[in-house]
């Protein structure tokens, strides 16, 4: 009964000072919405870069010969028979969607009197298309095994060569024995990987054609695409074990191969941390100011309650709970407003400018996962609680006699 009375008192006090509390609530609400939107934007960016890395060329895992060390591109070959065995072992795992063979080689591509040094991938066309979902075909068609001489050329490289779809280029490279060999390739299409520098030096051929020019059935790496819906905490270990149980090949995850992702994440975590700290300080100041003013204006009233027998802890709790009620109400409204605004932004399909070094513009999207929603709520609640602590402490320490004389 007593707690109901106290609760009623708290709510009445909150409603009585509604103007001041509304101002504090607006600060908390704006803070919560800002954290949701910015957090959601950053989370979406991380997810976009992660998916972009996986679905442009990396896949979830790559398997290389160990002799290549830490370099991404290697001339170390995996024996064709071993590659088949590893593929078969990996394909039995439920989380593995596909395993594809790839040859990564360097060489020269010539058209007319122009020659350009390039990086060439020999790929299994259909499987590679699934791993390269983030690579846009901007002219012509994709790569298909039915047209073995076809090649996908980086958009900027095609422009540099002055060639177009259907033209025949000459690809020159070193064979697995170190000799020089050349073949004719037909431009099937132009691709945009999203990175301008890569577009200037990148081609893809059918694996069979690459093996022909290298005089070898071996591959330089196996690329694994996982079914993320079936990935568990044990998946990483299982995939690595499946390879290391039958070979001494090196397994690297996309995360180990994508330094750029980690650099971007570190940079944005710092920015987000700074912005979060600013927002928390604003919320803290708003609650602190509102509650201190409230306590100052209610000295006589609080002293009377004390004189009527309420303990210091009860006053401390009551004032703190008043602050928390305002905070929680503002956070709930802030969460709903944040979710609504985020959905609106996602629906609006706002195009963002092309980032430096990239060739893709991208739509502004706010990712709404549990972290993005829970983290701002917890942080603002914490700021509200801490902001109300000092005024509440001050209220409970008021000397009854002095205070009642005011």
């Amino acid at each position: 009964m007593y707690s109901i009375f106290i609760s009623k008192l708290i709510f009445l006090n909150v409603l009585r000072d509604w103007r001041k509390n509304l101002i504090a609530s607006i600060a908390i609400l704006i803070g919560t919405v800002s954290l949701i939107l910015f957090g959601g934007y950053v989370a979406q960016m991380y997810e976009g870069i992660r998916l972009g890395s996986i679905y442009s060329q990396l896949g979830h895992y790559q398997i290389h010969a160990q002799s290549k060390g830490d370099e991404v591109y290697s001339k170390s070959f995996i024996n064709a028979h071993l590659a088949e065995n590893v593929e078969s072992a990996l394909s039995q795992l439920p989380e593995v969607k596909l395993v594809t063979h790839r040859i990564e080689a360097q060489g020269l591509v010539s058209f007319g009197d122009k020659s350009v040094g390039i990086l060439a991938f020999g790929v299994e066309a259909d499987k590679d298309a699934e791993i390269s979902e983030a690579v846009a075909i901007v002219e012509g068609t994709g790569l298909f095994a039915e047209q073995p001489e076809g090649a996908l050329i980086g958009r900027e490289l095609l422009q540099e060569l002055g060639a177009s779809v259907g033209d025949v280029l000459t690809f020159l490279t070193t064979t697995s024995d170190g000799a020089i060999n050349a073949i004719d390739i037909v431009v099937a299409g132009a691709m945009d990987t999203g990175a301008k520098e890569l577009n200037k030096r990148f081609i893809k051929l059918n694996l069979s054609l690459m093996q022909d020019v290298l005089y070898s059935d071996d591959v330089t790496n196996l690329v694994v695409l996982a079914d993320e819906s079936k990935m568990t905490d044990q998946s990483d270990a299982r995939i690595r074990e499946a390879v290391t149980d039958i070979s001494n090949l090196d397994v690297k995850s996309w995360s180990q191969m994508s330094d750029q992702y980690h650099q971007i994440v570190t940079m944005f975590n710092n920015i987000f941390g700074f912005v979060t700290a600013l927002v928390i300080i604003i919320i803290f100041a708003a609650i602190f100011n509102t509650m201190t003013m409230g306590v100052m204006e209610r000295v006589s009233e609080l002293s009377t309650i004390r004189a009527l027998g309420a303990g210091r802890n009860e006053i401390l709790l009551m004032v703190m709970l008043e602050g928390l009620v305002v905070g929680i109400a503002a956070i709930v409204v802030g969460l709903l407003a944040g979710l609504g605004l985020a959905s609106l932004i996602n629906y609006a399909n706002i195009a963002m400018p092309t980032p430096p070094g990239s060739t893709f513009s991208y739509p502004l999207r706010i990712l709404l996962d549990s972290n993005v929603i829970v983290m701002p709520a917890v942080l603002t609640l914490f700021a509200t609680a801490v902001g109300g602590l000092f005024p509440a402490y001050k209220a409970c320490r008021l000397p009854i006699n002095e205070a009642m004389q005011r």
Partner: protein
Amino acid sequence: MRKTTLIALLTLLTACSQAPETITEFDASSLIQGELSAQSYVKAATTLVDAASQAVSSAELSEKELNQHIAKVEAMLQLARDLEQENPYRAELLSTLGSMYAKKSVFYSNNAKQAGSLAAKGFRYLDKAVSGYPNNITARINRGIVSARVPEFLNKTNVAISDLSFVVNNPDFSALSQPLQQSIHGMLAELNTRVKHEF
């Protein structure tokens, strides 16, 4: 208060990502009337492609209906593969399948990964049709229209212009229905304006 709760709930629901609806298998032989021959196959495939094209252009198409059309076209392509026959209607079937997968991505506007994956799958089929049958007008129309309609950040403007220009300059263009001809001219004009604005 109830209204607010309902709106909040709906907002939350729309924010959640959807799981893709599965496509159930379909027995293509049930679509063939009489003995299976090249003629009866093409007849059934033509009916199927016409129905699918109409469905794709309908604004009231549900994902379930779309999945049914996809299952039928996939089954038709599989039937030709099983019989190891040269498929005389492969370009039309492949490109229609590509259009349908691209259309399916519209149902996943709140799940960018799923939408992107479906669009990529759609373009793979469309590219396969054009790559295998570069002079097939239906394949070019399908890829051109899908390329023109997808968001600009997918970088398909040049592909759309190339395909629709091919269609307009094709002798068979005049045999197409008037509304389709007008629609293609309209899209080409819009695409050219888009390209001019980019520069």
